[in-house]
């Protein structure tokens, strides 16, 4: 079974993220890393591969530093990596991202399962899995909190606010997983050493037959016209409970007409 996990190299969500002059995410001033939410997809791919004699390919796109995201995934146990590296990619929107990733998945070929996280921790739109599925002509099952692969199909459980659903799709399929699905492993020393010998292919846009004019900031179908920092919230009244805290809270709510 061939599994491709799409991973993203993102600015650390714990740091003060901002924008550059062209209104794209500032990826230089904040340390980057493998998106935390993608670790769950890598872990799930490894579990499925173990049970199904599978091979896990980690796919990313982005600047040279994005290789860090592949490296971490290989250290966790993925078998090989593919990095789409091309200057023209900078500023790509979700539509272009799905074009690049789907073209790369076609070139990797013979893929049974495409796994992703539930969203990136930077853009956070969560639309790329559906777009990938649409471009590849595949079914998608998303926000899985449990995944079972058997007999040519994938079955997932999804917890919504009104109901829990069991959803099945035929393979090949695109599956996104939540952070509830597993506990991603830490790379072991052995894993870190082994990762150094694992193959990573670096492909340009030409290698995956995507025109530079189809991607990047200028080709975006949606464009950011303004970014504005939200004024920091100022601290209001803080009281210390000395037996009267509950009453003071109720008074505040009454004054604000919340009750």
């Amino acid at each position, binding site marked *: 079974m061939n599994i491709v996990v799409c991973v993203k190299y993102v600015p650390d*969500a714990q740091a003060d*993220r*901002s*924008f550059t002059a062209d209104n794209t995410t500032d990826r230089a001033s904040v340390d980057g890393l493998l998106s935390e*939410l993608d670790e769950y997809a890598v872990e799930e791919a490894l579990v499925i591969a173990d049970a199904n004699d599978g091979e896990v390919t980690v796919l990313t796109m982005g600047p040279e530093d994005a290789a860090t995201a592949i490296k971490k995934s290989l250290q966790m146990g993925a078998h090989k990596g593919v990095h789409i590296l091309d200057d023209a990619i900078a500023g790509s*929107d979700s*539509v272009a991202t*799905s074009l690049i990733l789907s073209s790369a998945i076609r070139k990797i070929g013979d893929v049974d399962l495409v796994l992703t996280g539930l969203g990136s921790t930077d853009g956070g*739109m*969560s*639309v790329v899995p*559906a*777009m990938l599925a*649409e*471009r590849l002509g*595949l*079914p*998608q099952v*998303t926000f899985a*909190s449990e995944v079972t692969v058997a007999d040519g199909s994938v079955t997932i459980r*999804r*917890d919504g*606010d*009104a*109901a*829990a*659903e*069991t*959803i099945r*799709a*035929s393979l090949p399929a695109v599956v996104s997983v*939540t*952070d*509830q699905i597993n506990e991603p492993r830490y790379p072991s020393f052995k894993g870190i050493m082994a990762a150094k010998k694992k193959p990573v292919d670096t492909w340009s846009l030409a290698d995956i037959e995507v025109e530079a004019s189809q991607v990047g900031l200028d080709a*975006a*179908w*949606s*464009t*950011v*016209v*303004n*970014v*504005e920092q*939200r004024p920091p*919230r100022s*601290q*209001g*009244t*803080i*009281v*210390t*409970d000395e037996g009267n*805290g509950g*009453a003071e*809270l*109720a008074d505040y*709510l009454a004054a*604000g007409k*919340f*009750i």
Partner: protein
Amino acid sequence: MSEVLVLVDHVDGAVRKTTSEMLTAAARLGEPAAVFVGAGLDAARETLAAYGATKIYVVDSSDVTDYLVAPTAEVLASLCEKVSPAAVLLPSTTTGKEIAGRLAIKTSAGVVTDAIDIEPVDGGIQSKQSVFAGNYTVTAKIVKGAPIITVKPNSIAPLESAATPTEETVEVSVSDAAKASSIVSTEPKAASGRPSLTEAAIVVSGGRGTGGDFGPVEGFADALGAAVGASRAAVDAGWYPHSSQVGQTGVSVSPQLYVAAGISGAIQHRAGMQTSKAIVAINKDEEAPIFEMVDFGVVGDLFTVLPAATAKINES
């Protein structure tokens, strides 16, 4: 004036508040046209008319409802081709975003998710989104195709604007490819009787400080008619279901009032509640970062403060 398609968010005809918010936004851009997929239109008709739908497209076919998002995307794509709408609005739910993603590729149109505001501008439509844990507001313009925008619940104030909608049944022929994923079974959650997290005007959340006992949080929430949320720490500990998780990897809420009880306020949590209008926190640790952003804070034990506040509210 062009139509603006609004995918109705409903459960068996019970229209969710997001729908009236989307219809209100749609009226700013053109003629609001509701797209109703599934059964239960009789229950929904009145609300759709009250919030200004001038047309209702009715899609009631098991081919669509049994197979998740791909068939709905096909239906919307065919409607787009037929009526060339000014825009397509969908709810910012998991399903809504997935339909939006597929639709964008099908119709070659740009997509924006989690819009908190939408307005017409010269030569197009602009939307606003809150990003990077709510620290930035981004204004985006879609420059290709009929804009596809998912609207974040509780962001746009719904305005009543009565209309008399005409109805049109949409004949669908769903491709086999779109039927490749299907719902095997659905287990409805036991109804809590509380409002839904994303639609509630008040949300009360509990975190690590509850130690697993959400009793005081729920009691306080019920006194306020509020929804109950939880921090990631509380969900990871198994104290509350993931569907109630407020934060970056859960639901993002913008109620009128957000109450954080026993929650320190890590960025993971702030990302999901920072855009709330008013914020209140109760925490034993006066150094908890949540206090930096509150309108009102109580340094104290939630197990004494919340029951006392609840009692006083219930008395009045």
